[in-house]
């Protein structure tokens, strides 16, 4: 069964309607159109996948992320999380335990004033016993490699460490899926790497589904599957190889190619024979060296002739 299955979900942010003014009907229609953040999004995610959702600002990717945790529910269409309809209010807490969210600003999502209390927050909310809380908290801190910071104030941590604590807070609830809503956007490269390494490990070792919403293309290269959103719709989907072979389309959607693909493209434009859809440094290296070898070969053969 899919862990996430959305069927044509649409969402519009509420628009304030002034009952007295009538002359602005057209404007109101326009406003309503602009408030439409999601427009018929259908997608499926299988358990254990590492998914990336890409899209420029205002493409609806964060709105979609908020749906996954039932923070908002679709105005049209249906979204199932692990078989539960997000509109079903009785399942609300189960859904929030199944899907954990890590947000963008590390400071604005830490509630506790000591790391271990922060990690315990979710478990305290669902009424776990004191023993289970302690066990869950320390296990989660162990997994994100923050065990030695259990008694430290979050204010003393670096951005990457704070985000790892936030991941631990989600992890303590034993989720099947973790959604990173631009969680690395405010971090320096080192912090970004710390967080990504941590979630990659969780994905690999514990089989937790990861949905990373980002506009860092480099992160997308390592995903299992990519969705590209624009204007509230899913415009492209596929493996990184498939997505990044469609170079023109990516750029049309307001996204930059990953540096690796930019390099490949530039080399190709200069007349080198580099295949489309290169996603790792190794591949690019091979493609370049292969070409050199074949050049050398042809030189040798030319010399022989």
């Amino acid at each position, binding site marked *: 069964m899919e862990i996430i299955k959305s069927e044509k979900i649409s969402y519009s942010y509420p628009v304030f309607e002034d009952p007295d003014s009538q002359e602005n009907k057209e404007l109101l229609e326009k406003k309503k159109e602009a408030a439409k953040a999601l427009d018929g999004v259908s997608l499926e995610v299988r358990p254990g996948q590492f998914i990336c959702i890409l899209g420029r600002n205002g493409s609806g990717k964060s709105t979609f992320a908020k749906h996954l945790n039932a923070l908002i529910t679709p105005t049209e269409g249906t979204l199932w999380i692990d078989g539960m309809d997000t509109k079903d209010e009785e399942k609300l807490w189960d859904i929030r335990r199944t899907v954990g969210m890590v947000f963008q600003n590390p400071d604005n999502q830490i509630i506790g004033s000591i790391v271990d209390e922060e990690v315990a927050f979710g478990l305290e909310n669902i*009424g776990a016993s004191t023993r289970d809380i302690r066990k869950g*908290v320390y296990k989660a801190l162990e997994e994100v490699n923050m065990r030695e910071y259990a008694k430290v104030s979050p204010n003393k941590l670096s951005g990457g460490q704070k985000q790892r604590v936030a991941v631990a807070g989600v992890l303590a609830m034993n989720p099947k899926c973790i959604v990173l809503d631009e969680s690395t956007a405010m971090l320096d490269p080192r912090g970004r790497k710390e967080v990504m390494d941590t979630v990659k490990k969780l994905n690999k070792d514990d089989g937790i589904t990861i949905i990373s919403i980002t506009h860092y293309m480099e992160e997308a290269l390592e995903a299992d599957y990519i969705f590209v959103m624009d204007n509230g719709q899913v415009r492209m989907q596929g493996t990184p190889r498939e997505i990044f072979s469609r170079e023109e389309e990516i750029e049309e959607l307001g996204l930059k190619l990953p540096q690796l693909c930019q390099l490949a493209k530039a080399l190709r434009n200069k007349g080198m024979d580099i295949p489309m859809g290169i996603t790792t440094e190794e591949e690019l290296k091979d493609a370049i060296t292969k070409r050199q070898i074949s050049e050398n070969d042809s030189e040798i053969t030319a010399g022989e002739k």
Partner: protein
Amino acid sequence: MFRDITIGQFYPVTSIINKLDPRVKLCGVVVYIAAVFIINNIFGLLFIIAALAVLIYLSKVPLKHIMKGLRFVWFLVIIAIFFNLFFSDGDIIWRWWIFHMSRQGILRAAFFAVRLVCVIVGSSMLTYTTTPTNLTAGLEKVMQPLNKIHFPGHEIAMMMSIALRFIPILSEEINKIIKAQLARGADFDSGGIIVKAKGMIPIMIPLFISAFRRASDLATAMESRCYSGGEGRTKMYPLRYHKRDTVGYIVLLLFLLASIGLRILMQQFVTIGRI
């Protein structure tokens, strides 16, 4: 400028007072303040000072640190002494222009100053010896019975702990905003008090906007982690009474009885130094 607020700051040492349950300490503050106003003679005064000295000794908080916290209070104390000293009626012993000193006035001034300092030091001992988390947990527990009359005890405790967590973040933010506005040519140092106050507006407005944004983010984050108020919530470190807490309550009771006793018994023997 917002970093040197020492009232309400925990002093990290391990002491017997530190380990006490926060509920005992909260009760202790109430009892102590009550005792300060119950006593009415010189022996009582010495008694509450001695009690405070023992408390400070046991808490291992250095006296210097406590005095630092009193910085802002001295001004208040001096004003109170001044008015009690020079404007009290009674057996006048000295007079000059509108000022007059009386025997009762001197006593009253002394009493007032000692009481004020005792109350402030006594209650700040609570925050010196209790971590903010412990303190809010204690308050929440103490306010729990009020839930029956729909008093939002849990919400208040949650607000306090969130406020405590965001004080350093917001103070950092203020510094950032000040620098940003200075870089745009803002001037915070010249002009009279009104100009200066107006100059604060470009600091306060961005700060408020940012605080609201943070609040909204935080609310979303709390909701996504299943927060639904205090009902059905458990604790990782629930408050539990130990033997020392029982001893603490007994000591408090004895202390209260002793100060009442001092007031009643000494009434007959002491006529000097009573007010």
